[in-house]
């Protein structure tokens, strides 16, 4: 897949006080993918999104949106983008219907009540369409932000921490909407603190830390490359130490001697000393076990390791 819809080239952002929020960011987003941008607080995620969407000026560098320069051809670039911001920023005294319709007009589109109705129904907002925003719950207000972003039928959707502070049911609803949009060919870029969401939803993962893109990888490849697995064997009888024949860096014994922990990734199998070899060695050494379980490192573990490593 090589059909970029957003190309970010050498983007720098230094704020007035001298704080450098982004340092030479190069990033390509492919058409139709879900790209998750992960990073700790203050890493530069929101600044990056704000620059692409046009409401923060770059200090240096370029952003190309579907072939259009974000500064020179801002009309063509921005009309393709929908943004769900991190903060709840709705106009409190306006109704849901007017708020969403306002956004469509703002993006230069003619009124289309049928489309607004479809969007509101997909987000379970139809019954609330005449309610003022100030009367809605936080979760409902966030749905309105999504409806606003979808009102002008964008081809690219930025979701900046869209599920922060919403309940599980709403979060699932939102991800169903996101999946539906992806199926319709919309490119989705999301930032989130819920790494399991990125793990579940994203095609590719980018990690940003201290204003720099640390890593961009296909999610599956990232999990394979950096993810590790653990096999824990619960022994019938405790061991005081590992027999010399079993000694290897991947294997350890817990303090009480009842558990053997084997940490491995793809390399051990390739070198002919994977799980099957270990089990044979245990049998030969006369060590029996009554139970076992495995655990795979999550994207969160990988993310924490990466950020720690670069700090």
């Amino acid at each position, binding site marked *: 897949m090589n059909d970029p819809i957003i190309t970010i080239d050498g983007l720098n952002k230094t704020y007035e006080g001298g704080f450098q929020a982004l340092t030479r960011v190069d990033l390509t987003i492919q058409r139709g993918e879900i790209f998750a941008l992960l990073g700790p607080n203050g890493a530069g995620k929101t600044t990056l999104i704000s620059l692409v969407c046009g409401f*923060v000026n770059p200090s240096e560098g370029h952003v190309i949106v579907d072939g259009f320069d974000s500064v020179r051809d801002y009309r063509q670039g921005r009309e393709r983008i929908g943004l769900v911001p991190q903060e709840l920023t709705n106009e409190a*005294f306006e109704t849901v219907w007017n708020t969403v319709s306002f956004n469509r007009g703002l993006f*230069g589109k003619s009124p289309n009540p049928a489309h607004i109705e479809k969007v509101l129904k997909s987000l379970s907002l139809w019954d609330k369409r005449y309610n003022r925003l100030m009367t809605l719950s936080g979760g409902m207000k966030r749905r309105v932000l999504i409806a606003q972003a979808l009102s002008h039928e964008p081809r690219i959707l930025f979701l900046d921490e869209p599920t922060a502070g919403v309940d599980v049911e709403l979060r699932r609803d939102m991800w169903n909407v996101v999946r539906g949009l992806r199926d319709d060919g919309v490119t989705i870029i999301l930032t989130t603190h819920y790494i399991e969401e990125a793990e579940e939803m994203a095609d590719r993962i980018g990690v940003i830390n201290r204003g720099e893109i640390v890593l961009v990888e296909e999610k599956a490849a990232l999990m394979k490359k950096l993810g590790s697995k653990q096999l824990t064997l619960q022994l019938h009888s405790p061991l005081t130490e590992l027999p010399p024949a079993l000694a290897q860096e991947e294997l350890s014994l817990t303090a009480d001697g009842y558990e053997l922990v084997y940490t491995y990734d793809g390399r051990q199998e390739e070198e002919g000393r994977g799980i099957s070899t270990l089990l044979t060695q245990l049998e030969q050494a006369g060590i029996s076990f009554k139970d076992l379980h495995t655990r795979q490192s999550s994207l969160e573990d990988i993310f924490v390791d990466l950020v720690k490593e670069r700090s």
Partner: protein
Amino acid sequence: MNLYPVRAIYMAEMARTRRTLLQSVVSPVISTSLSFVVFGAAIGSRITEIGGVSYGAFIVPGLIMLMLLTQSVSNASFGLFFSKFSGSIYEILSAPISYLEIVVGYVGAAASKSILLVLIILGTSSFFVPLEIADPFWILTFLVLTAVTFSLLGFIIGIWADGFDKLQLVPLLVITPLTFLGGSFYSIDMLPPFWQSVTLANPVVYLVSGFRWSFYGISDVSLGASVAMILLFLAASLATIAWIFRTGYRLKP
């Protein structure tokens, strides 16, 4: 120019007026009407005519100008400031619209509201004072030019202000005193020579004078000077807004 975003901003701002009818329309109409009653009907009957015009009628253009200036500034500044305050300004800044379209939407709505108020007040004042209209063309020209120019000033204040108190700073501490001292309630001929010269440094004098001329054909300064002053204001406001959008001042970090 894409008219859909202009219409969207304009309608949203006008909707705000409908939601706040008491504050936006009823309040300025009542306070200005009270001035007609007090200065025009009650006190005015005891004051001699000025330039052949009864005192009650003489003050109408000045009072309308005071209301027009303050309301134009307040309407435009509040609309923009509230978007900044609530954070919804991102909608405007991330939309595919030009600076001109943003200004036309906000300033158009603010100026429309002010002109609507003037029309209501003109109608109301005719109940209290004998109103004459010498030149409807110039009344309309001054009305539109002043409403647009001071709405542009309000737009600038809305961007500059970082708190609600600053929103009121210019209307209350600059525009209102300048209007009171700008010949709204008197002709500058009535002042001693020294203060006549000082008063001519007050730009609002030219606006009030031109507006009064279009009602009664009497003025403190020439019509040309009044038109030149309002056009100068307009040019200065447009230049400031162009600079704001070029630099992103207080809008785009």
